[in-house]
């Protein structure tokens, strides 16, 4: 198994119910498979993904959906930024 951390920002915190969760997923799990699992486990996530563009970063960087998660990865879920004014 691979241990990862899911970091939720902005309205994704409300969807997940907290600002982060620790997860164990099988070796070889891709980012796409993880997102599908989260959308299954957290019913509000699919609805949010219909309303906004979901940004997913792995350790602060954009990765392809084929990216295979490794031990210690931090996967951040967030909406498009709203900084500035």
């Amino acid at each position, binding site marked *: 198994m691979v241990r990862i951390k899911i970091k939720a920002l902005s309205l994704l915190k*409300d*969807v997940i119910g907290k600002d982060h969760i620790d997860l164990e997923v099988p070796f070889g799990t891709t980012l796409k498979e993880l997102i599908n699992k989260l959308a299954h486990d957290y019913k509000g996530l699919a609805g949010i993904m219909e309303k906004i563009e979901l*940004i997913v*970063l792995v350790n602060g960087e954009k990765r392809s959906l084929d990216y295979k998660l490794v031990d210690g990865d931090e996967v951040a879920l*967030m909406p498009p930024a709203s*900084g500035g004014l």
Partner: protein
Amino acid sequence: MVIEAKIIEDKIDVNKIVKELMEESSSLGGGALVSFIGFVKGKVNEHIVKELVYEAYMPYALNKLKEIVYEEARRTGIISIKVYHRIGRIEPGEPTIYIFVTAISRRIAFDTASRVLERVKHEVPIFKLERRDDGEYWVVGDGKRIKRVRDKGKVM
């Protein structure tokens, strides 16, 4: 060249920074300073805003902010760039972001300040929650607002 990018909680002394930048830039050929300050609106969609709550995804937000400033500072004619983005609870009329650019010409300074602002707004993972007299709204991207329903643990 003077470059600085910070994510901060408190306000800064604008006059002090402007004075220092003009003094430092003039000897390097600078003759134009553009400053931009974004502040919290007190009214949105006819509703009273109580405060904004800014959160940054650290350390990546700071890394991206620095990357933008360093990239823009490499452009011809730029003498200095300083950007400070505030986080935490900020009330209407209070500053949220400061951008200072000095350059060899006003056109370069204006253009660069504008470009830095747009890049910060779109590229730096900073998010805001708007607390108003009719509830709380997550502000997403370029001003889209999604109402928060905290007690039910979901969003509308």
